[in-house]
């Protein structure tokens, strides 16, 4: 991560782990939540929020030490940070860059906002949403979530 002074002031480089860059400003904490990092955690974390960015105006950055994100975790991030770029760091070097891909189907990640939906009843199923141009559509009740997707994350 050398040669990026604008990050360096706020968060120091990490030896091993994951850097999630270009998160929409203000969504950094939601990214942590979507990764299941809430409350007490053993991971060394840094979150920078509202950092100036040439591309995005302002952005958030999340660094997680000693954890390399899995493919499905990366897909989850796409829900709230579709422009994010993910760098897997080993020994201070970018080992791998992963672009975020919007999956065609999101299973077990978001809760259906419709209280009358069978996916909110006590049934042995995961919630399932199809990604469509205008939002995420529930496979069961066909409710469409068009905004504030982070607040529906399970």
């Amino acid at each position, binding site marked *: 991560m050398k040669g990026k002074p604008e990050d360096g002031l706020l968060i120091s480089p990490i030896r091993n782990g994951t850097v999630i860059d270009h998160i929409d400003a203000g969504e950094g904490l939601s990214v942590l939540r979507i990764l299941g990092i809430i409350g007490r955690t053993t991971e060394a974390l840094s979150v920078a929020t509202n950092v100036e960015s040439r591309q995005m105006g302002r952005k958030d950055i999340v660094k997680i030490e000693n954890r390399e994100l899995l493919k499905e975790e990366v897909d989850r991030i796409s829900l709230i940070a579709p422009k994010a770029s993910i760098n897997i760091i080993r020994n201070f070097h970018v080992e791998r860059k992963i672009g975020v891909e919007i999956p065609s189907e999101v299973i077990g990640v978001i809760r259906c906002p*419709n209280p*009358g*939906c*069978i*996916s909110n*009843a*006590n*049934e*042995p*199923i995961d919630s399932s949403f199809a990604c469509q141009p*205008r939002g995420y559509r*529930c*496979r*069961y*009740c*066909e*409710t*469409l979530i*068009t905004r504030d997707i982070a607040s529906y994350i399970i």
Partner: protein
Amino acid sequence: MHHIISIKEITREEIDEILDRASAIDQGAFDPDALKRKILAILFFEPSTRTQMSFASAMLRLGGKVINLGSVETSSIVKGETLADTISVVSGYADAIVLRHPKEGAARLASEFSTVPVINAGDGAGQHPSQTLLDLFTIRQSMPLDGIDVGFLGDLRYGRTAHSLAVALSRYGVRIHTITPKGLELPPSLTDDLLDGGTEIVVHEHLEDIISELDVLYVTRIQRERFPDPGAYASIASGYRVTPEVLTDVSDRFILMHPLPRVDEIDTRVDALSCARYFQQARNGVPVRMAMLQKVLS
């Protein structure tokens, strides 16, 4: 295996196939033993006597047999069994399942756990494809579906029969006209779906403004519960009431439809007019459901 869950995933070709078959059945062209030795399980988790009887009648007319859940109160459902478990068990007893359930998406879930075809007979505020197919069938008895002008009157926000019918009609290049009280307009997500599909939607304030240009008027009930103030309800409901006077200028092929039961949204004096098709519409439930059963069972 073929389920019938949501009108959204039934193609125009499949709709036409079911309606063609229903037409033939309606004219007596069907084998009364077509579904001999087949068993249909009717699982209704909320009462809807007519839909239930209509499916049972359709099955019996094709020579099949019907088994029934019985009363929900006495069965294991009250003991907290999941719908998934009920479906897994019942699909071992029958060749097809007709399901009605208060939760939206229940029929989709059932199709995931069933080893036999599932027909959705209404899931909460969600889909009710057999109603939509019989509505289409009723229109087609009077005129071809393509390019007609269909008016929807009443509660279009919560009226699921109107939603499904509008979606189905969008496959036929139909122009949709809406006449609703404030607050009971089509939900924006449905409007967007219809517009995306290239359907033209025209919003009118008064039925009188458009009635003479309509081929079909589909009336839905405005429910009292939607209005906290009974006075407000009465004055709004009376403004959307269909009377013989409102229908004086209609076109020759105009028909008036209603999913029934009605309360007072259509004046009973209208029943005698030749355009009144709601009782015919209800009768059409049997041939259309016979065609649906044949589609999934053969």
